[in-house]
């Protein structure tokens, strides 16, 4: 196409310059802001140093009087020790994790692995799992026992998806202690509700 291109190829040198002018994105910035007046609930729960904090994030629950509250960690929204009559001790934890946290099957099988049980297939999980609705909350409940270090160890657990987080309520310990605490466990589950 004669006459189409500029006669001097030097003019084309402008093209990359034009291109480079458009490059560059946001830069690192520093600024000062007042502290947020209200700590988000997720932060409040993890920042709580007192073990008796009843509300932890987006959910609240009523813990059984006999359960002894333990110190919270960054991952645990609730943490309790349950002592059996024969000196055995079970652990109850409430952990919230963003998203699906790997999915229900993977997490239940992780629990089964912890008590030396083989993993569930998806069909086996469907057969085993029980469903419970407490107000607007839907819980998936599991209960199984396996031999751990020669001792029958039971896990009674509930999994809940709420506001983009997966919540794991897990009671784990010697079989007889967990069985004895089952009613208290269900009482806690029934008392769970969204933070108002």
């Amino acid at each position: 196409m004669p006459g189409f291109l500029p006669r001097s190829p030097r003019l084309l040198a402008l093209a990359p310059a034009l291109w480079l002018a458009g490059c560059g994105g946001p830069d690192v910035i520093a600024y000062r802001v007042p502290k947020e007046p209200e700590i988000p609930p997720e932060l409040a729960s993890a920042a709580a140093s007192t073990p008796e904090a009843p509300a932890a994030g987006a959910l609240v629950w009523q813990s059984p009087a006999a359960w002894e509250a333990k110190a919270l960690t960054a991952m645990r929204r609730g943490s309790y020790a349950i002592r059996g009559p024969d000196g055995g001790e079970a652990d109850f934890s409430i952990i919230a994790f963003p998203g699906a946290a790997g999915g229900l099957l993977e997490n239940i099988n992780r629990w089964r692995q912890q008590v030396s049980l083989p993993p569930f297939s998806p069909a086996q999980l469907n057969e085993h799992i029980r469903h419970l609705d407490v107000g607007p909350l839907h819980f998936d409940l599991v209960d199984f026992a396996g031999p751990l270090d020669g001792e029958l160890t039971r896990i009674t657990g509930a999994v809940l998806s709420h506001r983009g987080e997966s919540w794991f309520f897990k009671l784990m310990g010697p079989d007889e202690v967990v069985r004895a605490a089952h009613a208290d466990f269900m009482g806690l589950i029934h008392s769970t509700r969204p933070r108002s």
Partner: protein
Amino acid sequence: MTFAEIRRAFIRFFISLRVTIVLLALSIVLVFWGTLAQVHLGIWGVQDKFFRSFVVLGTIPKTDIPVPLFPGGYFLGGLLLINLVASHLYRFRFTWDKAGIQLTHFGLILLLVGELVTSLFQEEYQLRLDENQARNYAESFRQNELVIIDTTDPEWDDVVAIPEPFLARRRDVQHPALPFRVVTRYHLPNANLGLQDPAAPRDFGVPNYANRGLGPQVLVTPLRVTHKENERNLPAAYVELHAPEGPIGTWLVSPMLVQPQTFEYRGRSYRLALRFSREYKPFSLTLKELRHDIYPGSNIPKNFSSLVRLQSADGRDDFEALIFMNNPLRHRGLTYYQYQMDSVSGFSVLQVVRNPGWTIPYIACVLMSLGLTWQFGRHLLGFIARRRTTVA
């Protein structure tokens, strides 16, 4: 070649009708290609790659080496703009016969300028508010930032915000406000987080570099980058902080980790997080009440509304406003639309938009309509007049 010759070569090139035709043809190809690519890239990906770029870049197969494939929207649009303006300055002379064409062209110039203004200056954020919660910032729909916050002061937070592209390119950051260097060990543009089982093999997920914070307990698995309009990527990164005396530690950061990760260094308290990029404003909004009305006897939504209170930091503004469908709140160049709502959980999400060029396309369309009407009308009247003369 003298300066005058260079100038003439420039002018000759930019007023060329052939250039116009070639640019229009290339634009048609670009639009067609971009439309097809939208299937895989989505609207945002296509806009960034094809239309808001000077060059459409691809990569050499099986590598990350970029290669230019085609001129991008900025390049073609920019040259078209120069071409149109130059042609008007050097080629066209005003006459009433051609006024319509010139007005139409002027509308087209405005349309191109309007798109440029929109792409350069439009801001689009979301503001999520729980009931009775006040916020003076909105969050980006798509951009993320690593923040390292000095929380030592009881009233103020000193924030250093590092845009995610720095992490993606693994660029070290040494900022004067930080007594340490920020080094990205690993970055994933989209990832899922799961609880790490100490007994489980690590044959899936990425290597766990974290030795501080929540990271050691978390399993990170890569996810395919999404370009869908109703999804967003949730990146993850392992970030190491280097002090002059050696590494302080490595943390996993992700917008999915809402729990705070804190540490102490030289007597000061810090918090770090990868979060949705924030845009702070000199005023705050408080969600006073949200309503989700349905038609009686059905679940069909009738109305979503958020009653908010706006308070400026200087105390000049303090008023309440009801935001509902087609009734946004406009304040200081920003428009707040009702976007999402969950009345059960008690939160509302507002879309926050600033587009200083939003009127330009309307003005451009009016000018082009007037120009075309003038041009065709004048021709029609001339034709009718000639016909009458012939008949008579």
